[in-house]
């Protein structure tokens, strides 16, 4: 109960919140066999490829794996900054 009271007055997430968040990430890793390092380099590679065709706002791009039922999805949200100036 002490734990409960003190939590009301603090911003610390509860142990159940922590468990939920840790499991969410671990399950994505387990299911996709993709570590967070590998996901980072996937992002970098993706960025390279796309930048060859179009100018993108790399700072605000978001690439995440999300869960849709038991299906994992790779979701990329990449703001376009403008066309690459073509040199003819």
């Amino acid at each position, binding site marked *: *109960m002490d734990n409960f009271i003190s939590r009301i007055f603090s911003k610390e997430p509860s*142990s159940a919140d922590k*468990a*939920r968040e840790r*499991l969410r990430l*671990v399950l994505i890793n*387990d*299911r996709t066999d993709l570590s967070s390092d590998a996901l980072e380099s996937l992002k970098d590679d993706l960025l390279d490829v796309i930048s060859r065709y179009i100018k993108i706002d790399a700072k605000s791009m978001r690439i995440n794996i999300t869960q849709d039922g038991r299906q994992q999805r790779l979701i990329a949200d990449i703001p376009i900054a403008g066309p690459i100036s073509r040199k003819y």
Partner: protein
Amino acid sequence: MSAKVITITSGKGGVGKTTAIANIGAALASKGQKVACIDADIGLRNLDVVMGLENRIVYDLVDVVEGRCRLNQAMIKDKHIPDLYLIPTAQTRDKTAVSPTDMIRLCNELRSDLDWILIDSPAGIERGFKNAIAPADEVIVITNPEVSAVRDADRIIGIVEAEEKGTPRLLINRLDTEMVKQNDMLSADDVVDLLAIHLLGIVPEDKAVIISTNKGTPIALDTNSLAGQAYHNIARRLLGENVPLLDLDKSSGFFNRISSVFGSGEK
């Protein structure tokens, strides 16, 4: 009659498979169903003591498979409920004594005579697990609301799907309502959201389970206990009834406040 074969399995050990088999078996049989429980956990015989039948064993699963006895000679009749039987496992160390094909053949031989065949699987992904799920018409995965158990459950669900046994249904065992209220335990909703499979039932943490197991009398025979009621509800859901989830909150007017189980697993 043509029995439905249900295998209860888990990723992590000790989450409550054997207890669930004994109690769901007892609950189904108490509703007039003819049930055989098979212990497929070779080398770690347990279902016999949980059902209180350890003194009646003459023949076991391996004796049947190796032809040392007829199938019905290895079926031990329950002490408490008519039409409930146990086929005990062997204590041999050789887990390859039984193959998945043996299990399929054995269940096919039993089917015509029974309503339900419940198979107690070992935890994990070894040979024993393969044996246990081979004859299954449906697989139930059991977990506790706890990080490592949920993680391992997710692995097992993936493997059951890969073995083309369909998506298993989920049984959450040892949920402690007080801890959930204090935000110190994953709630049933959390676990269902994470694993994304259909929820078959929730069994609360209940000291009465350990006490009844001490005596070799399944808690399902005590319909005053919360866990006993939970197992009965699970049995009724297996029989196709729409039974709402138990209100596990002992402080709020017992089982009156109910919330629906239906659809929650399919989000």
